[in-house]
């Protein structure tokens, strides 16, 4: 098992290198001369050219890429922001806690609300509750985060004044953005829980448990839910990725100083090192989450577990 985890972590290194390459490539084809951005609009052509040279921009693409990777691995250096002149690592580190807080809050809300709804719907298939929540789920999946965010601000901050519309300084600040970000996941989890539980309910082994004289509530939780967990955990992983992407939008709407907003601002200002760093960090987080999910499989599915032995 430990061997497998180590193997997976080692596998992450080439993946992240390639992700870096993609992002580096994307940033290098972007219009706009980084040197010009650093020295400013009023600077002379000579100044720009001098800056190009000192930034190493005249070197071929792969040389620049390898230099970037080298700095990253040897010094944890993601370059320097063109705009603020601060190290990108430092900028990201100061924005990271907000993003983590926001996405964790959203995923926790989604799990705590979505999965129980799915469980109840599965045990009471075609009941009013089931039909109602499943329609609600479809609506939830179709809600654009940015619109939902605006509606939540409109209702709960502007009209009712219950929650602050922006920032992320207290617990009350977290609630609205976390709900905006988590709503889609609530719906996805509820639907997935329901459908995979319905799949399990039909299985013969559930009948075996019933024949033992077990209570329905225990059958549902100990056996049906337990067996349905693998697909549920899979969507939790996928959804976490969507959530990280959505966090970019969510942070913009709620004016939260997270990595997403940092990146959006950086894109607008053509501050490429910051964009690169941001994408890299979020992708790394996504890969780590997927790794955790894969490890979780081994604990949930004895067949997978025995493969690793």
């Amino acid at each position: 098992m430990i061997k497998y985890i180590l193997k997976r972590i080692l596998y992450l290194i080439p993946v992240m290198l390639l992700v870096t390459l993609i992002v580096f490539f994307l940033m290098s084809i972007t219009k706009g001369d980084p040197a010009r951005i650093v020295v400013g609009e009023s600077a002379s052509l000579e100044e720009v050219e001098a800056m190009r040279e000192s930034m190493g921009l005249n070197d071929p693409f792969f040389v620049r890429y390898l230099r970037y990777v080298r700095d990253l691995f040897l010094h944890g250096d993601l370059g320097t922001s063109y705009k603020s002149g601060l190290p990108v690592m430092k900028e990201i580190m100061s924005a990271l806690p907000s993003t983590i807080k926001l996405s964790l809050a959203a995923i926790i809300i989604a799990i705590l609300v979505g999965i129980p709804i799915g469980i109840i719907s599965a045990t009471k298939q075609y009941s009013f509750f089931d039909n109602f929540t499943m329609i609600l789920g479809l609506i939830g999946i179709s809600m654009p985060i940015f619109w939902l965010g605006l509606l939540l601000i409109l209702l709960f901050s502007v009209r009712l004044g219950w929650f602050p519309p922006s920032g992320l300084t207290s617990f009350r600040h977290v609630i609205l953005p976390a709900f905006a970000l988590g709503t889609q996941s609530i719906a996805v989890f509820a639907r997935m829980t329901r459908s995979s539980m319905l799949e399990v309910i039909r299985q013969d082994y559930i009948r075996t448990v019933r024949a033992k004289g077990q209570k329905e509530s225990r059958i549902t939780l100990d056996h049906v839910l337990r067996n349905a967990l693998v697909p549920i955990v899979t969507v939790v992983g996928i959804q976490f990725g969507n959530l990280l992407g959505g966090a970019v939008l969510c942070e913009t709407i709620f004016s939260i100083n997270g990595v997403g907003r940092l990146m959006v601002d950086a894109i607008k200002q053509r501050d490429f090192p910051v964009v690169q760093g941001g994408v890299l960090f979020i992708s790394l987080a996504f890969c780590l989450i997927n790794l955790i999910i894969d490890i979780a499989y081994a604990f949930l599915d004895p067949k997978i577990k025995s493969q690793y032995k």
Partner: protein
Amino acid sequence: MNVFLKIEGLTVEYRSGNRHVHAVNDLDLQLGEGEVLGFVGETGAGKTTTALSILRILPNPPAKVLGGKVIFKDQDIIQLSDREMRAIRGEEIAMIFQDPMTSLDPVKTVGDQICEMILLHRNCSKKEAWEMAGDMLETVGIDRGRAGDYPHQFSGGMKQRVVIAIALSCKPSLLIADEPTTALDVTIQAQILELMKELKKKYQSSMIMITHDLGIVAEICDNVAIMYAGGVLEYGSVMDIYKDPRHPYTRALFDSIPDVHRDQARLKVISGLPPDPTDIPSGCPFHPRCPHCTERCKTEKPEVVHLNETHWARCFLAQEEGRYEHE
């Protein structure tokens, strides 16, 4: 003989949309304490449905018990509350299922699955239950050290042993075995059957053995019920049924067994198809396939004809012994 299990007029239906599948129709049956009853019939005759209604674990919906009584130890099981029923399941009546590949929870160790049964019905600690589960595994011929293994680590025959261990772990007074060997290889079938015979002796429990294999019945059963289209057509001791079958369907069943000692050009098969359970024939349900069908058979359902103390058949011709000896 005291009434141990008595089924009267049991009728079960499956509904899907507008289709009504008549799985069990007005079924009567009796089982004495310590007896082994063979439940014989073609696929779709309602054997499993009957078994599941005794345990009241029919999938509902779509299945619904429309009427009848299942008297077990002087109480009508159909009328019991869910809570009372749960106390009976496993403790008094246990079941062995047809397909061992799918009847064990894949994410629990076999030890845990046996323990679950024991903890439900016995007042003991988890540790004691685990010990008992180990004992049960040994009883069915599995090393107790394997209690911590998962179902996928066992072969089909071993899994069926585990299923048997679960069923017997609370020493039920009635054991229902639903084609326990059908899904297994022939050699494994013999082993499992041997084990069941052994355990029957050891536990002294009554048993309903559902099968379509008349050989198994001869080996293990005391009495036999021949099922067709959701009802019992003939009932009697193994001797009665094997030596003197009275219902044409029973005879046809015996005729369809290939005889290795005789050189048969073709297998004798029962002509026609099993009845469509959504549309059971009127009168005697077997009449469309019966070689001796009369006009009366088509409209009137035959009453039970008692032939001796234990032997009865639902056929107008049952009394006319030897009528179709030399065809």
